[in-house]
């Protein structure tokens, strides 16, 4: 069922093929959309020299990206396509101490949800306790927001992996490079509820060391957000960015963090979204220096 990808594919420079070929499930089984739109937005002023986040700039980036993603001319119109007044909405964030979701991004999303008619008391913001959080238990919509980083097992931690806290047992999702992460999106608490995925690439981490898989040497100020409604497409773009940075720092043989097969499995096995870059419409906005992808 699956094709074994070896080091030799990377040596051949065929690693891009990895994205499409790592797992061979019949593409015809896909019943969802055949294309996906992802917005990559960057602003030089998003962070200052000490990596302090500029909240005003982050709000502008979120607004512009979501407007462009949904083809609307105001943030209010764009967010009103995502949620309805009176809904209960969960913002699934990430509290990993070394590289958490920036509160400025969380607040930016919350601000727009309120403007779209969601009551503040009906907005949940959580990570580790989403399963028992009453707001997440009642939520009819979810926003998925987290930083982009590498991961020992999954290759990268992106929007797909961010839902692992909805699982009854997280270690059960770890075998085979966390290949089955896409299944999380079919849990009753989650299924059909994700309206927006925000992958924070403000200071992405391209390599990990030590027990905690973190060292500040391996993050860089990219100052970007990767935003889309398709979590697979968002993660596929995030993986491209990590690969580009690793290629720059370590060379082609080390460009792929081992082994991000869950992105392809989410596409080919679960039909959750698109991992094939040729079918992803990537809209790039803002600061272009060092864009890398």
């Amino acid at each position: 069922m699956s094709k074994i990808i070896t080091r030799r594919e990377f040596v051949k420079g065929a690693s891009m093929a990895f994205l499409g070929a790592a797992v061979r499930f019949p593409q015809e089984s896909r019943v969802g959309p055949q294309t996906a739109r992802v917005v990559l937005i960057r602003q030089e002023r998003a962070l200052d020299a000490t990596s302090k986040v500029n909240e005003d700039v982050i709000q502008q980036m979120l607004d512009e990206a979501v407007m462009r993603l949904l083809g609307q001319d105001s943030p209010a119109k764009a967010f009103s396509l995502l949620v309805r007044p009176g809904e209960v909405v969960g913002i699934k964030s990430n509290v990993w101490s070394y590289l958490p979701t920036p509160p400025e991004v969380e607040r930016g999303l919350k601000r727009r949800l309120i403007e779209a008619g969601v009551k503040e008391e009906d907005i949940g913001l959580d990570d580790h306790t989403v399963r028992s959080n009453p707001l997440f238990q009642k939520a009819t919509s979810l926003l998925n927001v987290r930083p982009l980083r590498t991961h020992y097992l999954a290759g990268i931690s992106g929007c797909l992996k961010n839902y692992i806290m909805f699982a009854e047992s997280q270690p059960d999702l770890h075998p085979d490079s966390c290949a089955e992460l896409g299944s999380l999106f079919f849990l009753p608490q989650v299924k059909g509820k994700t309206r927006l995925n925000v992958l924070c690439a403000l200071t992405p981490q391209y390599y990990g060391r030590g027990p905690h898989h973190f060292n500040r040497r391996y993050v860089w100020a990219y100052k970007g957000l990767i935003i889309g409604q398709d979590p697979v497409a968002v993660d596929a773009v995030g993986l491209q960015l990590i690969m580009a940075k690793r290629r720059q720092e370590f060379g082609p043989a080390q460009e792929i963090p081992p082994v991000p097969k869950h992105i392809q499995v989410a596409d080919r096995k679960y039909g959750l979204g698109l991992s094939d870059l040729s079918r992803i419409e990537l809209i790039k906005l803002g600061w272009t220096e060092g864009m890398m992808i």
Partner: protein
Amino acid sequence: MPSRVFIFLFCALMPLSGGTVTDFAKLLPKAILGWDAVQKDAVYDRQTLYDYLDGGAEVYLAFDFKQVFVRKYSGPAQNEIALDIYDMGSSAEAFGIFSCDRQDEEAGIGQESEYGPGLLRFWQGPYFVSITVGGDEKEAEKAILALGRAVAPCLGPPGIKPGLLLCLPPAGLRPNRTSFFHGDISLNNRFFIASENILGLNRDTNCLLAEYGQGQADPAHLLVVQYPGEGQALAALRSFLRSYLPEGLETGAAQTENKKWTMAKAQENCAAIVFDAPSREQAEKLLSSVQFPKVNRP
């Protein structure tokens, strides 16, 4: 200086032998160079390690990890140092987990160590120690190194490295670049081979990955895997050749896309593979120089 002498003498007189990592709570400093211990100390075992290491637990569980003692120190500007002392069950395992992630300069702490901005790693006896800071590395550097020097004498006597290391040919071996491990997670994070576990690595296999070559040129890699039995070694060799080197099914050798040579063989209960040797002759020479441990036969 007197306090440093006191810590050394105190720890030297009370090495942690026969106890558990919980005993470290009494031995280790509560404050170091203006950084103070905060929160309660914590201990995690094989069942609870997931609660502490987000995504990294399997790396330790692939070794004979027993427990980890954790103490956090708070310093200026909310910066926090995390001290982790891992009881790896034996000195061979402690060396192993240390060796898999090695790339910084030696820091002269414990049996072997390395320090790079914000991260000190060393091993001593059956213990592997990591001291790291999430924020300003420069600000924390002196405290991290001082803490390491205070911890090392508390860990008891030195231990020995894995005996399998003796099989490596010494000629051309790059110093401090040899890893000892068991599972494919460790292998792929150090040197990606394949998206599937084509060598059948698990907790029962002992693996060495070593680098060979002079100067700045890309090194050749020698992987030696010791299996519980000869049959498993042979099966792994066949699996590897089928998946990775199909053109070498007959000879065990082939030139790969980068114009370098990969060569594999099984002997005794081991499989050995040379990756990226500059020539077939060099691959053959390296492979034939491996001193495979003898299997005891009745």
